[in-house]
Structures are given as C-alpha cells and as structure tokens.
C-alpha cells in the first residue's frame, strides 16, 4: 500500500466524520489538560518539599577558651562528615547583634547587660538528603564527642516536621500523579477504542476484499496519532493560556502566584504524549487482526 493513500484515507475518515472525531480530540485534550494542570501544584509542592531541608540548621556552641586555631580544627573535624554541607562561624559579638535584631521590639532587655554572655558558635547546614531525624541524631552524637564543643542545639520537633512534611508531600504527589495519569491514559484509550468500535464492519469488509493487515492498520494508526496529537497540542495550548491568565494576569493582584513555577519544558512533550496515546489506543483497539 502506498503511504499517501493511507494518509488520504485517514484524513478522509477524520473529516468525513468531523464531529465525532472532534469530540474525541477534545476529550483527549481535556484529559491531558487536567493531568498537566494537576501536575503544576504537585511540581510546585515537590520544589517546596525539596527546599524544606534548607530551612534546617544546627548550632554548635564552642568552649570560651578556644583560640582561632582550635576553632579551625573543630571545623575541620566536622567537615570530615559527609552529612555536612556548609559551616558558618558566628562570633559571640555577631551572635549578640543577631539576637538584638530578632528581638528588635524588646531591646530594653539588653539595657542592663555589661558584658556579652553569649559563646562563640558554628552554624551547620546539612546536605538535603541527610536531613532526617535518625541521621541527624547520630550526627549530633558524633559531633558532641569532638573536643571544644560544649553543646549542640537543633529543634527536634522542627526537624521531624520538616522531614515528614517533605516525605508526605512527595509521596502524596507521586501517588496523585500516578493515579491521574493512569486515569487519563485509560480515558484516552477508551475514547479511541469506542471510536474504532464503530468500524468493525468496515474492517471486516477490508479483510474480505483481500487487504493485508498492514493496509488495514496503517490508516487507523495515522488516525489515532492525529486524534491523539491534536488532543495533546490543544491541551498544550490550553495549559499555556491557563498559565498566562493565572500566573501573569492574576499575579498582579495576588503576588503569591509569582512564585509558582511552571514546568514548561515538560509540557512541550504533550503533543508527543498525545500521539503515543492515540497510536497505542488504536493498536489496542484494533487488537489482533484475525482472518
């Protein structure tokens, strides 16, 4: 069979029953649009979840008797642990300044102070994947054994909130996207299948007239690809329109929208996803052709 003919045949079919095909295209577009749409909050939650551990830091209080050299040694011992991402030295003067600025409204407390009562300290940021209640406890026990460290401080409750929030958001997001995608893949498949169901008799006639399997399949695959591809493209246009309206227009009024990230490059694959869905739908819909 010449490919131009299958192409013409599928176009004829597409436009010969334009309404019903348009309906399928729109159904698939709606389906893909919905998955993409729900991908936006999940993606953003994931971005937020990934950044959550950055909010966490440990404070290590140093012995007052340590000199510059001793402190460097402590820093080096700490840095040997692979969990450590960065260490910042905070002198007792800096610490007091920071405290004063956070207690801005209650600076009268410090009026009675004659000497700085704060110790020198180190702020340790851990690597993102090391921020997990057990790992942090182990690390802090190890660190406490280093000479010159008097006390280690970190919000245990804050840590476990951060950790479970991260795990929770990521798990939920994954489950949500998997179910959504499965649902929509099914909707697309079923749309194509129902569409081809009407063609049973046509396929039968094709067979009786001596058509090979390839001859019968090709136009259906092209048709499926076209329906899926159009659906995907429409959903892409929909997503862009939606992001434009919501994130550029609405962002003027509600500034929080400005910080919403849109995984645009991912969405660019929507037409391709549509084509794959359409072809797969057509292949399954046709089933194993038997003579």
């Amino acid at each position, binding site marked *: *069979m*010449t490919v131009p*003919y299958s192409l013409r045949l599928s176009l*004829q*079919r597409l436009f*010969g*029953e334009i309404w019903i095909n348009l309906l399928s295209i729109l159904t698939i577009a709606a389906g893909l649009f919905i998955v993409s749409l729900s991908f936006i909050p999940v993606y953003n939650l994931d971005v937020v979840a990934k950044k959550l551990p950055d909010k966490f830091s440990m404070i290590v209080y140093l012995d007052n008797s340590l000199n510059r050299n001793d402190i460097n040694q402590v820093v080096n011992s700490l840095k040997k642990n692979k969990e450590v991402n960065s260490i910042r030295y905070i002198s007792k003067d800096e610490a007091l300044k920071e405290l004063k600025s956070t207690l801005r409204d209650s600076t009268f407390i410090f009026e009675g102070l004659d000497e700085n009562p704060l110790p020198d300290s180190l702020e340790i940021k851990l690597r993102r994947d090391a921020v997990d209640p057990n790992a942090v406890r182990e690390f802090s026990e190890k660190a406490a054994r280093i000479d010159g460290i008097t006390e280690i401080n970190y919000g245990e409750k804050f840590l476990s909130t951060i950790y479970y929030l991260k795990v929770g958001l990521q798990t939920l997001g994954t489950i949500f996207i998997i179910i959504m995608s499965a649902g929509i893949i099914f909707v697309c498949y079923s749309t194509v299948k129902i569409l081809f169901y009407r063609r049973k008799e*046509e396929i*039968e*006639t*094709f*067979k*009786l*007239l*001596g*058509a*090979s*399997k390839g*001859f019968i399949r090709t136009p259906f695959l092209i048709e499926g690809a076209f329906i899926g591809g159009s659906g995907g493209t429409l959903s892409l246009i929909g997503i862009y329109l939606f992001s434009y309206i919501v994130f550029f227009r609405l962002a003027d009024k509600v500034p929080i929208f400005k910080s919403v990230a849109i995984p645009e490059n991912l969405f660019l694959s929507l037409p391709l996803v549509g084509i794959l869905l359409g072809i797969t739908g057509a292949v399954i819909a046709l089933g194993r052709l*038997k*003579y």
Partner: protein
Amino acid sequence: MIEFFDVTKEYNNQTALRNITFSIEKGEMVFVTGTSGSGKTTLLKLIYLAEKPDKGEISVAGWETEKLKESSIPLLRRNVGIVFQDFRLLNNRNVFENVALVLRIRNMNEKDIRTKVYHSLKTVNLRHKSDSVPEALSGGEQQRVVIARAIVAEPTLLLADEPTGNLDVDTAAGIMRIFNEINAKGTTVLIATHNRELFKNTGRRVLRLDSGNLVGEEAE
C-alpha cells in the same frame, strides 16, 4: 480451480452443508441453486475463507485452504472477485472509492485506478453515480456497484451471490452478458442464485442444494 471433498459445515450444531464433493475447472461458469437457507452462501463463504469447514478438504486456485498460512489469506482473496449477497458497501465513501478500494489494496497507481474504476462503473451503467454515496442509490444501483467492485480487478475467480436479486429482467440480462464476457476471457465464474431464468437453457452446470445436501449437478 475449486475442489470440495466431503465437506461438512455446521453452525451451532445445525448442519448447513453435508458431505459436499464437487470440483470446478478453470474457466468454467457454474451455478449454485437451491431454496432459501439451503446453503448457497455458506458454500461461497467456504471458498473465500470467511468460514472454515468442520470436515473435509477444500482447495481453491491450487491452495489447500486448510494448510494456508494466515498471511496468505489476503493473497488468495486478491484472486477472487465477490458479489456479496448483503452488498458490504462502505457508507462513508462514495461509489468511486468503494470500487477503487479493491485496487488500492492491490497497490495500483492512481492513474490506472481511475481508468479501471470508471471503465468498470460504465460496464454496469453507473458512471454518472460515481460521486454518490451508497445510501443515495436505489437497491438495484447498489447491487450493480457491488458487481463493478467484484470485476474491477479482473479476478481469476468470480463468486456472485444472488447478483440479480434487486435487478429487473433487462438489467439482469445485461449483467449476465458481462459475466459471460468475463468468463470468455478465462475467469472462472460461480453464481449462487434462485433465479432459474439466469441458467435456463444456457447449458451451464448447475449445483443443486437441498437443506445442505448436494442433490444434482446437471445443466438445465
């Protein structure tokens, strides 16, 4: 061209054909007749492999159908032109495309397709209806489109199932003339019909079916 040996065909335990044995030589024109439900269509279906026999052996154009690979079935069918009793026209394409389909399946180029389809439609007097869809044709016109489709690819075997059921006497006579011409050019022709007028006094062999039994093979 066609050989049946002791063929039996049952549908849900109801026998449609029983122990049928006959053979048709290349170039012959043979009729199949019998009352309604006697098994004529079933016999044709066994030849073009729309049904499989429950017993016995069938060979068509040298192929033993039982041993035929699935992928060879289309090849066999491309040698056969079929006038289906229930027409099997595709309602979503016009008359031209319905007839042309047979040639497209055979991978013919567009120019030859046009020539052949128009010639075939002229043969059955429907050149002027080539742009109509089947639904906009009269019953007899539809039947003639089916005949045009069956002969357009110049098959080596022509199977016609009740080809004149919707045609008046004169048009039917015209169709029989066409079949005779095709047969004269070497095509084997097998016509299932209840219309005795088609074979009376032609000297052609007539297979007579009665409730699935082959009860006679003589010319009338």
